[in-house]
């Protein structure tokens, strides 16, 4: 935004408002595209065509769906808590958009600065704090609907969010040690110089933990217990229809995009290309903008597709197993990771050492797993 700011020379609050507008308007088509892509991709995974009726090759399917949802009757159950019922989708949707305030979508090259609305010094902290807000929306929706399935979904949503918030934040701490800053821009800059400097290599464990937690944060398979449709019909949003359901739906995809964006920033080098960038591109302002934004979006898109791919493959965990997984596995793992990172940071050779640490771990485990292989249960003939 720095470049634009110097060009337009507007007061900062106004620039912020313009940025908010841009994000809100920009995210709507992105979410629509993600919905469509998910359906196409899941279709491909299962040898189906996916949506193919509306528009050329089904490309307008989400628009048709959105129109349908908007024109549907907006239904409020009898005895619902009307105020909370009305507020819940709003509270659910706002944080997903708010996260993008600190997401740098690209860079203008040279000294022009990155493309983002606010370069907060506490960028990562802001993201996590804001992102955990939508749990309130889930609980409100679950409570206000006056439906037992919704209530169970709401309770599960809160329990899940509380459990997964912790390893999620802890998985960032190692990165903060390495980058020495909480600002999203600084974190990306710390990863400059090529693929080998990206933090997912230095912090592989944290990266995997983050991926698991982020899937849990956005309530997707295998962690979609708040809305598990084979158990709770549709969980916390069972009673929502029309526009308000559309808001939940939209927020979920925006959140998915947001978590992928965070992962890109923190672990995959944000807008940076995986190799040292040629000076021709870094020199041109507009050229570098498209180049960097392209890399950023490509990475985000890959992560989002990964989440969709997992959805097409894995079953869902049970609520208590989910908590077990978070508290008894993820939290200790990130703590150990944090400890090791701290030690390595002291030694200063984290990149090499990180790789060795991972290789050693994998090798030890591979030997173990081969030994344990024979224990699989079989039927008796």
């Amino acid at each position, binding site marked *: 935004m720095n470049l634009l700011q110097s060009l337009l020379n507007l007061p900062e609050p106004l620039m912020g408002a313009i940025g908010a507008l841009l994000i809100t308007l920009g995210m709507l088509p992105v979410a629509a595209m993600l919905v469509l892509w998910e359906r196409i991709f899941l279709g491909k*995974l299962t040898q189906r065509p996916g949506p193919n009726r509306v528009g050329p090759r089904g490309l307008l399917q989400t628009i048709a769906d959105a129109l349908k949802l908007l024109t549907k009757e907006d239904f409020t159950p009898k005895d619902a808590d009307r105020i909370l019922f009305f507020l819940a989708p709003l509270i659910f949707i706002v944080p997903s958009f708010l996260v993008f305030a600190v997401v740098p979508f690209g860079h203008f090259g040279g000294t022009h600065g990155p493309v983002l609305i606010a370069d907060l010094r506490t960028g990562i902290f802001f993201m996590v704090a804001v992102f955990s807000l939508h749990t309130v929306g889930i609980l409100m929706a679950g409570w206000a609907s006056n439906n037992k399935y919704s209530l169970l979904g709401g309770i599960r949503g809160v329990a899940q969010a509380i459990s997964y918030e912790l390893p999620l934040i802890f998985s960032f701490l190692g990165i903060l040690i390495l980058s020495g800053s909480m600002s999203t821009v600084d974190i990306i800059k710390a990863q400059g110089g090529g693929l080998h400097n990206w933090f997912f290599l230095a912090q592989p464990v944290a990266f995997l933990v983050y991926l698991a937690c982020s899937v849990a944060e956005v309530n997707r398979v295998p962690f979609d217990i708040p809305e598990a449709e084979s158990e709770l019909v549709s969980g916390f949003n069972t009673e929502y229809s029309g526009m308000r359901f559309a808001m939940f739906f939209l927020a979920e995809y925006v959140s998915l995009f947001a978590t992928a964006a965070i992962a890109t920033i923190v672990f995959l080098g944000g807008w940076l290309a995986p190799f040292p960038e040629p000076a021709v591109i870094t020199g041109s302002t507009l050229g570098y903008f498209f180049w960097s934004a392209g890399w950023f979006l490509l990475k985000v898109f890959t992560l989002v597709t990964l989440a969709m791919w*997992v959805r097409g493959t894995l079953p869902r965990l049970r609520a208590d197993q989910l908590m077990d997984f978070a508290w008894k596995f993820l939290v200790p793992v990130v703590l150990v990771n944090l400890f090791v990172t701290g030690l390595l940071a002291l030694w200063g050779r984290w990149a090499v050492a990180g790789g060795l640490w991972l290789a050693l771990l994998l090798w030890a485990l591979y030997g173990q797993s081969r030994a344990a292989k024979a224990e699989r249960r079989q039927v008796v003939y």
Partner: protein
Amino acid sequence: MDVLTRAFQGAKAIAEGLATTFKHVTRSQVTIGYPEVRSELPAAFRGMPGLPPDKSGNTTCIGCLACARVCPPQCIFITTSKGEDRKLRIDDFIVDANLCIMCGLCEEVCPVTSKEDKTDYPGRAIQLTHLYEMSAYCHEDLVFHLPQLIAIGQEFGRQKSKDLPGQPRTACYSRLAVHVKELTRG
């Protein structure tokens, strides 16, 4: 170490599963885009019963009521009258497609056979045809009378599908759908 072993094994199994699902991305689609593309029907397909006409366009039914008697949901109703030449005439032949379960017992018991092959179903007066699209807005539209049944038999009879093995028959379907609709409405 047990936890980590399990974690590793789990990750490996998940990766295998993901690989398997991803393998399918490259495979060809199995879905058939139904209204435009139709699956090939086997010759034995059991669809809506019809009355394939003879060369003069009349039904070959002799009014013995065997089909009406054997029909499990009892959806065949035949009215006959004796004409002046003392021959049995079929006044109306009703198949209520709301009730029909397409079991094919009617064509099995039909005594009318073709001269060449006594076991050949395509010689029967009532035959299950290859018509399977019979949506309608009300139950009455699905009560088929003699002229409609003859039309169905003519368009979709098995004899016909024998001549055209495995041909998608999109053109005839839409034509007949309109045809049958007109007859049903009228």
